[in-house]
Structures are given as C-alpha cells and as structure tokens.
C-alpha cells in the first residue's frame, strides 16, 4: 500500500507543465497532495493563476500518466486555498528555468538576465507570453527575456 502510494506520487510529480516543459508540476509547486482513497488515486493541485489555461491540460496529463502506470481509477481535485505562491517553486526548478532562458522568480528586482547574468535589465511589459511571466529586456546583452513573476 505504501509502495503503491509512493509510486503514484512519483508518477504525478513527474508530469510536466505544458507551457514550460522543463518544469514538472512538483518543481512549480502546484502539486499539493497525492493520496489513496480505496482503489482511487486522488491528486490535489492548486492553480497558479485563476485563469491559467494550462490547468485543464495538467489535469488530463496527470490522469493519463497514472493510467499508463497502471492506476485505473484517478481523481484530480483543484483547491484554491492556500493560494499558490512562487515561493513554493523548488531550487531545482529555478535552476532549470534559468537554463531554459526564463529568469526565475526573484524578489530582489530587477531580475538577472538568464543569458548573460547582468542585473541591468528593464521591464517591457508586466504581462508576458503566459499569465505567470513578464517580458523584460537586458540592457547589457540587449536580449529580451521572459521572467517568472513573483506571486
């Protein structure tokens, strides 16, 4: 029973974010709980933003991954409280984001350029390619880049 729960947890934790595929949902900090309810695996997730369109896809992918791993009955439940914060992102997740070209959430603004590391950067728009990112520009290497918003 314990091994089965650990396996279910590992499978759910490995599901990737469809919009930022270098991050797993565990890296992102949106996987809140995995538990067994009889034969059913219940996975509890929390959305990043209220309207994040990736949440439906993430729920389908959790179900599909668990089905593939032999768990026939899966339930994905979304809870709003406590509200997700970027403080829940793993250090490993932040490292992977930077390597992918996205500045990780960093409360000591302005964010460092993921290309050259310069702190001399400016905000172009607080709303980037997804709800969770803002668009910045590096004043040293001149590259524009996405930065994860602190939330």
């Amino acid at each position, binding site marked *: 029973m314990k091994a089965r729960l650990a396996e279910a947890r590992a499978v759910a934790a490995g599901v990737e974010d469809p919009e930022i595929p270098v991050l797993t949902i565990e890296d992102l900090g949106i996987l809140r709980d995995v538990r067994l309810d009889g034969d059913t695996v219940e996975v509890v997730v929390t959305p990043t933003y209220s*309207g994040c369109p990736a949440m439906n896809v993430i729920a389908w992918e959790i179900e599909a991954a668990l089905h593939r791993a032999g768990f026939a009955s899966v339930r994905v439940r979304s809870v*709003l*409280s406590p*509200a997700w914060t970027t403080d829940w992102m793993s250090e490993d997740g932040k490292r992977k984001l930077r390597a992918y070209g996205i500045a990780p959430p960093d409360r000591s603004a302005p964010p460092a350029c993921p290309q050259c590391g310069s702190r001399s950067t400016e905000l*172009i728009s607080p*709303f980037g390619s997804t709800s969770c990112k803002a*668009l910045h520009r590096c004043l040293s290497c001149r590259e524009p880049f996405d930065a994860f918003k602190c939330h």
Partner: protein
Amino acid sequence: MATTSIALDESPRIRTLLTLADDALILGHRLSEWTGHAPTLEEELALANIALDLIGQARALYQATGIDEDALAYLRDPHQFRNALAVELPNGDFAFTIVRLFLVSAASDAFWRGAVGADDPDIAAIAGKAEKETAYHVRHAADWLVRLGDGTAESHRRAQSALDALWPYTGELTASADRPAWLHAVGPVLQRATLTPPADGWMQSGGRQGRHTEHLGHLLAEMQVLPRTYPGATW
C-alpha cells in the same frame, strides 16, 4: 436559439457570488474583444492576460454556487445578469477601455483585499488568488492612464472624455460606505494623469437588479450563440 434559459432561485449567497462573477465575466469578455485589435503586441498580450484572469475568477465564483458554470454563463438572459452597467458598455476607443479598466479594477482590488478574511470559505479562497491578480490590473491600467492623460492633447482629450462618460456609472462599483476609500484610491492617479474627475452627481444604476443597457443583450448574443444553438457541443 434552440436552448431555453435556466430558471434561478437566488439565495443571498448565490446573489453575491453572481454579482462578483458577472462583473468579472462581462469585463473579461469585453477585454477579450481587443484580441487582434490592440495598439501594440505587448498590449494585446496584456489585455488578453487580464481577460483570462477575470474569466478564471468568474469560473471559480460560478463553481462556488454549486450550479453548472456553463449554464450560468451561457443559459441566462440579460435580466438574470447582476453585473454593474459599467462593465457591459462597449469598449469605445483605447482610452475608454483603459479608464474603465482602471475605475473598475480599483474597486475590485479593494474588495478582494478585504475579502481575504471573508467568513465564506469559498469567497476567502477566491479572494486569496484574485487580490494578487487585480493588483496587477490596477497598476497596468494606472500606468496607461497617466501616459494617456498626461500625453498628447489628443490622448488627454480622449481620456478626459472617457472619464466624464464613465463617471455616472461608477456608483454601482462600490457599496456607498466604500466610496470614500475608492475615491481616495483613484484620486492621486487621476491627478498624475492631469485628469479632472467630475463631481459625484446622479448615478446610473440597475445592473445589480438585472436592468441593463441594450449593450448586454448584444454581448450575450455573441457569447452564447454557440452553446445555445448546439447544446452540449464539444470539440
């Protein structure tokens, strides 16, 4: 239209949830109309992102009623919507869109910050997310408002004219007890934007009671046509 509207028996709690949800859904829909038409690519993304936040908030609020969220969005007639009149008015020009976004977001931002400690656990949970999102909405609208108001003679004229037109619709945005705080929040930004708020006078109302302008019916016709014509459609 093939599908008939749902009948609702509104408890005070459902009325409250629908009031908040309908404000978010209708403003979100209006903002989504800018997709493909915004003045710059960055602004296009910003307005679409704000629309997404609002429609996401509306979904969570509809779900909290325990009634099917799609039925609430797609199978109600205009008189069953509880949104403020301000959010259903057509987008007008970019200045009108920004002035409205600012005035409405300033009210919802204050509301959600206060609702984080609400007795209703659903409203408190939704507020925990919404207050972070609306803070971005107000800041973005305020930035634009200052650029438009304190910009060229033409952008100033358009922003002032939008403010004059929208002011009589702001009475519905806050409970009367909260209006001084709202005026206190919007005042300094309007001043930086070199815009003059009209004096409070007679205010338009009726949205909360389901008495809407002609514009809501047109908006809903477009929003609802597919699910009403093809009930249960999936793709």
